[in-house]
């Protein structure tokens, strides 16, 4: 094949947005609407009462709500003032999520699973959300909120068996890895079609209101899928019926290889979109455990007391590839993950706890080791149920089950045709 030297220059009037940080570039985030992080201005954004008129959240949607300063202090009206035990639990859940991700990535590379997706750098969003919600508030995750399941105490072995699609998989190998489902843990089935779960969350919230429960639904989408119609359906319906829902946009800057500007266009922020629907809207530092916790608490209270839905943009950064099938060095600057100005959620909470005198490096290291050992031990148990590439141990007859409540005649005939 002859290599052609191509020019990526745009010689037309058609505007095609491009990120600043393509491979080879020095990371530069000046194109993002980011406040001055060194001065603590963002920590002075007001925390209105949750039942505030939605349009009064305008500066919260265009600004960036933060609690933790980069040097580890908790500051400003959004500080949820959590006790040290709760903070340590949050740290532990984030570190557990990170440890599980690390192990599952390795086993995918060893060929034992077909696929995996890490949430490195985004752990605070799932973990703090789960801790701020009630355990029976239904969450409608996208595929990067495994921290919700782990925080809610879903058995790690079951989670790993799902990734391995083996005989221990509660879903009997029907779904691809990471498409978990647990009604028991109020964790909705992940479908992997992007954005589709958003209107389900709103329907669920409408059902909560209809039945008079105080339940809240909490949905997550990446910033890329806010371009899907489903996102707009969800915002319209939650606005019209004042659904007790929390609509989270995890803006991790990258939708596979497309930078956030492809979905954002000329929008000021993603959170700002909520205002057009008359929904309270917040843009928060997604790498700030305390800010996520405070925002979800605020939105849940607003929803539970009849104020309707809140749109929350979690401003964060996807440190790894989209999935095990992706290589981000092909499309973004190599140093970008480490140059992210809002730091790392685990490091930041750790620093905060240390500053409080409630944590130290030795304990941190020991916890890391303890979690890695627990994850490895659990993985070995999980692998004893088989792997996708060795033997799944899943009965082929189950393929025809759960298509319908009762197996219709034509599926019975097809099962016989397969000889089982």
């Amino acid at each position: 094949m002859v290599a052609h030297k191509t020019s990526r220059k745009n010689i037309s009037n058609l505007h095609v947005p491009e990120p600043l940080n393509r491979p080879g570039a020095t990371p530069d985030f000046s194109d993002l609407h980011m406040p001055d992080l060194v001065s603590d201005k963002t920590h002075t954004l007001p925390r209105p009462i949750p039942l505030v008129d939605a349009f009064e959240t305008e500066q919260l949607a265009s600004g960036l709500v933060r609690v933790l300063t980069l040097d580890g202090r908790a500051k400003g009206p959004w500080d949820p003032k959590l006790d040290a035990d709760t903070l340590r639990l949050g740290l532990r859940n984030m570190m557990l999520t990170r440890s599980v991700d690390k192990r599952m990535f390795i086993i995918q590379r060893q060929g034992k699973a077909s696929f995996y997706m890490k949430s490195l750098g985004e752990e605070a969003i799932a973990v703090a959300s789960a801790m701020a919600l009630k355990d029976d508030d239904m969450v409608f995750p996208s595929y990067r909120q495994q921290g919700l399941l782990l925080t809610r105490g879903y058995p790690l072995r079951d989670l790993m068996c799902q990734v391995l699609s083996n005989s221990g998989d509660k879903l009997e190998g029907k779904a691809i890895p990471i498409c978990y489902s647990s009604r028991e843990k109020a964790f909705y089935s992940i479908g992997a079609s992007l954005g589709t779960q958003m209107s389900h969350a709103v329907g669920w919230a409408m059902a909560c209101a209809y039945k008079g429960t105080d339940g809240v639904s909490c949905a997550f989408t990446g910033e890329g899928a806010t371009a899907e119609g489903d996102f707009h359906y969800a915002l319209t319906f939650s606005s019209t019926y004042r659904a007790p829902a929390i609509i989270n946009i995890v803006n991790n800057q990258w939708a596979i290889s497309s930078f956030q500007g492809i979905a954002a266009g000329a929008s000021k922020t993603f959170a700002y979109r909520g205002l057009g629907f008359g929904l309270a809207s917040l843009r928060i530092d997604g790498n700030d455990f305390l800010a996520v916790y405070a925002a979800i608490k605020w939105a849940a209270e607003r929803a539970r007391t009849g104020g309707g839905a809140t749109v929350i943009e979690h401003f964060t950064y996807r440190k790894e590839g989209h999935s095990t099938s992706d290589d981000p060095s092909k499309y973004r600057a190599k140093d970008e993950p480490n140059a992210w100005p809002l730091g790392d959620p685990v490091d930041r909470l750790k620093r905060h706890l240390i500053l409080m005198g409630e944590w130290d490096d030795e304990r941190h290291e020991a916890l890391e080791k303890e979690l890695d050992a627990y994850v490895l031990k659990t993985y070995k148990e999980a692998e004893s149920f088989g792997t996708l590439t060795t033997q799944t141990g899943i009965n082929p007859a189950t393929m025809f089950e759960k298509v319908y409540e009762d197996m219709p005649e034509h599926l019975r005939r097809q099962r016989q045709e397969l000889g089982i």
Partner: protein
Amino acid sequence: MSDQVSQKPKMKQMNMIQAINSALDVKMSQDPDVLVFGEDVGFFGGVFRCTAGLQEKHGLHRCFDAPISEGGIVGTAVGMGAFGLRPVVEIQFADYIYPAFDQICSEAARLRYRSNGDFTAPITIRSPMGGGIHGGTSHSQSPEALFTHIAGIKTIIPSNPYDAKGLLIKAIEDNDPVVFFEPKRLYNGPFDGDPHSPAKNWGGHELGLVPEGHYTIDFEKARIHRAGNDLTILCYGTMVWVAEAAVEATGVDAEIIDLRSLSPLDLDAIVKSVTKTGRCLILHEATRTSGFGAELIAEVQEHCFYALEKPIMRVTGWDTPYPHALEWEYFPGLERCSRAITRIMED
């Protein structure tokens, strides 16, 4: 008779709109988890009046208007269904179901499977379908084959008030998602496929005599609309009545099978009939290529090959968009169906 009718039902003459309305009313009265929403279905009662009076009787929270957002209507219904409600949503015309297609086939149809039964979507999606009302390209389509192709949903098309009510109640009670197409040309009366013949209504028609209360009709049970020995006609919806008129016009002793439920399909009834008659004609309004008729032909040839005396034939809509001015040239009407019957009966 497999129909489960409550004891000594009180009967009432209804058209198909009234029968559908009655099914919704019966279920809403019985089950507080049944709620109805869609475009214009609330105060106004629907553009075809199928939900008239339901909001007045059951409350604003049980029957309400939805934004013009078919994807949002089905998407929120899936979420409600997962919660445990039994939403019945209306898509104003089948032609407008496509924005909801992803929600139907990627979500409603797969939720039970991908979660291995952890979450389900017991929802009913009602939508008027078919031509014969000068609806042109955008108000006449018959997209049933797009749905029968999807594992995980059921596709139902009634042809008369009695079936419409019993099947709709069954659909609402079913724990799987059901797409329920209502042939709008039949709402007010049977239609013989000849636009020049005087309009009929359901008044006095035996299939317009409907129990007032609760009853259900099982899916996967076709209805023998007319028993016969020499030819099997497989059809559903509006074409059942065109078939009846064509059989009368040609004087052939044909067995007309109203499939009612396309998925699941009553293959036994089809095989039994074609094995008996040796001839099979399939009628549908939808476009021909990859239409449901193709599926029927495949099943009939596989199961009845040695009984067949003639090639299986089908009369369908042409493979064009549904034209406005040339509606009756497009519609597989009385004349085309009669001609096909005559041809298939030739030795």
